Structures are given as structure tokens and as C-alpha cells.
């Protein structure tokens, strides 16, 4: 179905969805997904990411705005006429059809007579050739997921939509399927739009991530950009974990030839690179990722030239194999998290240990303090 047009990017322009009951699931939204890219919509449940996906699939009609693939406007096109296929959250395999018939379903509906060869190729791609004549219920979760993928891919859609495709799998299997999906996307070169609430999944697979919250895109960029330089507290907390420390912004300065913003943080002056400072006056949140916080017993040398703090104590220590997670109480009484990889260079420090900690100033970021510091930390 891929057409020989030059640019078949997916473009959402001012797309909006308000339901009959007045609830606005998606605020006016602009998105451009380049052809052949792996794009992730990341956000908590209810943020509008699934509604956005369904509007692309044609399962919901936008209240306003347009959905285009290349030059063709598909905003009001019926779902069964769109060059778009979906891998549904719970796979939605047809229970009364065999695996082969499930995979052939789309081709047959489009009038393709001889589907056997294409089905065989596709089953080979997802390594399910031996399961062709089984019914979906006889397959494991991971196998069902691959059938759902094959059933969508065989139609060679211009855009493949994935709605939390790995949500039903357990942790280890999920990690394995992430690599698999990424490999297949690279191989077939289609545009993938992937909806997920699992930040690790989005970061592992996507070229570009759009973080959604309450119907809006909070920030969009590559995984590294979003992780290293979040613009809002929501992104800082939802994508990984962040320590946010209150400070008052002093103003811009130049340090070793680079523009920085200086902040008085609990009596210590820290310098944030200007491109990482998303507030320039008043109060601000100084943010730092736990793995950037290096800890050592009080007085020992720390390999992180920059912001150095003394007088902290370890409050709790969790050994989780790969790393140890510490919670420190700082001299000014705040609890902050620090991760240390168990490289073996140092043993695990028990709670109560007096420690110093430090971070390289170029990894801190500065956010506007008018935002809720706990936005994006899932409540229960």
C-alpha cells in the first residue's frame, strides 16, 4: 500500500477531541511524524495518548483539526479505508480463526486471492511458522503479540499504530519484545507510532518521544534530550526520577565562556547551563537525576567536580543487584535519592552513614517553581 509519493509523513494539525459530555480528551495538538520513524506517545493513563492514536486509526473522529498522511486528508476517512493498521493493546486476535487466517484477514478483505505465500513470509518474520494452524488461545502472550504484529504488518500500512502492545507481557518478556519490535521496524522501514505509559519502553525504542499530560504535549524530542533536559516538572518526574531542590534565581552569568544561570540553592550557589534553565527569575526548582548524584563517606574524594555538599546522612539503602539506591537526608533537611551502580569499587553503605555528595553542574536543570514538584509522580 506504500505509495510512491515523496513524503508520506503523518501530520496532525490542531487536532482536538471533545466528547459529548464536555470532557476534552485532546487539546488542539500539532504533531509531525516523519516517514519511516519510530515515534512514541508517552504519558499516564487518561492523558489523551490513546485518543490521539484512535483518531489516526479512524476509530474516533476529531472535533476539530485535520489528520493527513502526505497530501491526503484522512480526517473523516472510514477506518477500513485508511492505509493505517493497528496492533491493539490486548492484541484483539480473532479467536475463531487460525493464526494463518488471522494474518491473512486484511489481505482477504482487500480482495487478494492468493495469500498463502505472503502469510508464510510474515509468519517467518515473526518466527511463528510452526504455529500457523493453531488458534490464538493456544499461544502464549508473547506469541499472540507477534501474531498481532504480523497481522498488521502484512498489509504494509503507511503508518503502523501500536497501542501499549507490550502491556500484557511480564517484565523480562517485555524487554525482549522491545528489542524485537525495534529490529522489525528497522527491517521493514515503516512509520511506527507507539503509545505507552512505560518510559523505559519509549526510551529504548523510539527515535522521538512526545510526552503527553492532560491532553497536551508537554515536551517532544529524542529520548536523550527529554531525559537530560526536561522542561517541566511533569517530564522530569514521569520520565525517570528527579530530585527537585528549591532555589532562588540570581541571574545570568558567564562561566568559562558559557552562559549560565546562577541559583542560590540552600546557601550554595550553583550554575546551570543556560540551555538547561527553563526559568530565569524568581524561585526555581534545581533538578538533578539520582544517578548523577555521587555519594561517598564524609571527607572522601568524589569524582564529580562541581556542586559539592557535605553533612548528609544515609536514611535508607536498597540493594537491587545492579545498583544500590540510597535516600540521603541533606544538611538542610531534604530527602534526595542517589543511585550507585554496584561496580564493586565500593561496598554498600548502611543507613546512618555520614556522607558527602556531589554532582557535575552541567547535568542539573532549572525549572519554574510555580509548577507542582510532584507532578508526574503517579499517585495511588
Amino acid at each position: 500500500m506504500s505509495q510512491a509519493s515523496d513524503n508520506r509523513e503523518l501530520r496532525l494539525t490542531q487536532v482536538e477531541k471533545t466528547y459529548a459530555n464536555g470532557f476534552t480528551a485532546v487539546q488542539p495538538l500539532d504533531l509531525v511524524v516523519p516517514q519511516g520513524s519510530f515515534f512514541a506517545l508517552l504519558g499516564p493513563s487518561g492523558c489523551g495518548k490513546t485518543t490521539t492514536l484512535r483518531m489516526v486509526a479512524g476509530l474516533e473522529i476529531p472535533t476539530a483539526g485535520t489528520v493527513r498522511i502526505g497530501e491526503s486528508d484522512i480526517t473523516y476517512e472510514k477506518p477500513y479505508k485508511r492505509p493505517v493498521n493497528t496492533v491493539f493493546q490486548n492484541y484483539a486476535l480473532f479467536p475463531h480463526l487460525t493464526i494463518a487466517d488471522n494474518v491473512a484477514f486484511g489481505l482477504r478483505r482487500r480482495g487478494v486471492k492468493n495469500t498463502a505465500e505472503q502469510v508464510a513470509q510474515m509468519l517467518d518474520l515473526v518466527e511463528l511458522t510452526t504455529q500457523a494452524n493453531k488458534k490464538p488461545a493456544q499461544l502464549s502472550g508473547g506469541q499472540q503479540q507477534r501474531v498481532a504484529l504480523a497481522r498488521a504488518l502484512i498489509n504494509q500500512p503507511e503508518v503502523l499504530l501500536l497501542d501499549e502492545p507490550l502491556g500484557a507481557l511480564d517484565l523480562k518478556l517485555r524487554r525482549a519484545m522491545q528489542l524485537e519490535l525495534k529490529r522489525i521496524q528497522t527491517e521493514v522501514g515503516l512509520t511506527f507510532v507507539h503509545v505507552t505509559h512505560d518510559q523505559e519502553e519509549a526510551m529504548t525504542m523510539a527515535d522521538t518521544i512526545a510526552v503527553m499530560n492532560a491532553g497536551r504535549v508537554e515536551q517532544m524530542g529524542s529520548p536523550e534530550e527529554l531525559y537530560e533536559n526536561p522542561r517541566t516538572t511533569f517530564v522530569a518526574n514521569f520520565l525517570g526520577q528527579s530530585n527537585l531542590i528549591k532555589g532562588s534565581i540570581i541571574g545570568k552569568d558567564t562561566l568559562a565562556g558559557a552562559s549560565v544561570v546562577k541559583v542560590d540553592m540552600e546557601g550554595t550557589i550553583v550554575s546551570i547551563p543556560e540551555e538547561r534553565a527553563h526559568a530565569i527569575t524568581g524561585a526555581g526548582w534545581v533538578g538533578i537525576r539520582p544517578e548523577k548524584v555521587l555519594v561517598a563517606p564524609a571527607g572522601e574524594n568524589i569524582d564529580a567536580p562541581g556542586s559539592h555538599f557535605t553533612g548528609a546522612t544515609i536514611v535508607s539503602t536498597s540493594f537491587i543487584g545492579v545498583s544500590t539506591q540510597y535516600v540521603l537526608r541533606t544538611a538542610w533537611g531534604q530527602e534526595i535519592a542517589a543511585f550507585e551502580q554496584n561496580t564493586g569499587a565500593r561496598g554498600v553503605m548502611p543507613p546512618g552513614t555520614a556522607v558527602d555528595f556531589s554532582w557535575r553542574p552541567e547535568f542539573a536543570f532549572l525549572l519554574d517553581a510555580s509548577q507542582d514538584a510532584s507532578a508526574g509522580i503517579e499517585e495511588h
Partner: protein
Amino acid sequence: MRSRMLPYWLLLPAALWLFLFFLIPFLSLVATSLYDPDGSVLTGYHVTWHFANFPDAIKAYGPHLWRSVWWALIATALCLVFGYILAYTIAFKTGRWKNLVLVMVVAPFFTSFLIRTDAWKLILGDHGWVVHALQSVHLLSQDGRILATPVAAIAGLTYNYLPFAILPLYTSIEKVDRRLIEAAGDLYASPFRAFLNVTLPLTMPGVVGASLLTFIPAVGDYINAQLLGSTNDRVIGADIQSLFTTTQDYAAAGALSVTLLVVVLAATLIYVRKAGTEELL
């Protein structure tokens, strides 16, 4: 150890049920069907292994049996069509009105079988508004009637057994995962093809259940034929009933009952096998 025999003991109620309520009546019937046909209340009845009761009964009442089966089949088909439309509408289209509409559909059941049929008799009667209406638009001749025709009897069967068709249909349609229908649409199936290729096959258990629940009682039913049909169109249920109670020809009554039972069981087995839903039984 302590509970190894327990499951067997607990099977007892079911076995007892089957024995009391199926095997005993069935064996009694079979015994009756082999009575000496010359027995009477005065001379008494005796099992004489008189197998000729069967050909005799079938010869005498074959056309009635055939009529019963035929009417029951038509009524079942009508129940399936109307029942599927109604059940589908309720399950998929009524949204938050679903419970209200379900109550509406079950409501007629709250009047007894008999009262409902009697009420229909009034409606379809020669002086009722249905006949008048049809006559005034010339769909029925001036001396035409509906009551006392096969149409009325089959309409009555359809009406009375429709709730039995709707409930299994509703249950199976309601269970269909809407996401499968969305998935079919996503995979280039128009709504009509999605219905044919996904919804209908998935609701086959409901269709089979509905067919059996309407066909089986409808074959034996004689109330509808008696109240709404013509006295010339006798059905097998009426024959059995009058042989048992009026004529007291137990031998013929028994033979006819066993024949009917065999016909119903055979039809059921063939149908279920054709429909490919053996796992239901």
C-alpha cells in the same frame, strides 16, 4: 485419602435427578409404548413388547408429526431473525438504556403463557382490530381471517418462544469483544463484512442455543395450535394429549411420545454437528 470418595458421593444428587426426572419417565414412556394396544382402564395395561404400536402410530399421526416439525422450524427461524436483531440492538446500540430495554423485552414473560396467548386470540380474532385493519387496506379479503389459520398458530409459537431465543442470543452477542470488531474495521473489513466474518461466527453458540430452546418446546407445543390455529390442523402434541387423557390409548400415546423424542434428539444432534458447536453439549 479422607476425601477420595467425596466426589462420587456428590455426583449422587445429579444421578438421582437424572434417574427420577429423565430415566424413569423415559422408561415408563418406552414401557407404555410397548403396551398391548387392546388394554383399557377396565382390563388393565400390560407390556407385551408390541412393537407394531410404532408403525401404527406413525401411520395414523405421521402428517401431524410432520406439521409440528414444520411449524416449529418456521417459528424457530422467525425467532432467530427477530431475536438476533433485537438482541444485537440491545447489546450494541442501546448504551446506558440497555437495562431498561432488557426489562422491556423480558416484560411480556411476566404474564403467563396462557394469558398472553389468550390475549393474542382476542387481537387476531375475526372482530379484532388487526383483521379489520388488514381488511380495510385490502390485504385480507372481507371474509378472510387470521385466527384459526396456520399463520396465527405459527405467529403464536414465534411470539411465545421469542424470549427463549433472545436470552441466549443476547448473552453471546454481549460477550463479543467490541475490540474485535474495531480490529476487523482496522483490517479493511466494512461493517457488513465485519459482521459476517467476526460477529456472526463468534455468536454461533448463541444461535445454536436459541434454536434448541425454541425448536424443542415448540415441536411438542399444542396450546398455540389449539387456541390460535384451526381445528383441522392438528399437531402431534394435541394427539398425544388427547390419547393420554381422552382416549386413554396409552400404547399409541407412548409410541407417539417416544417417536417425537427420538425425532427431536436426532434433529438436535444433526444440527449441533452441522453448526460445529459440539463443545456446547
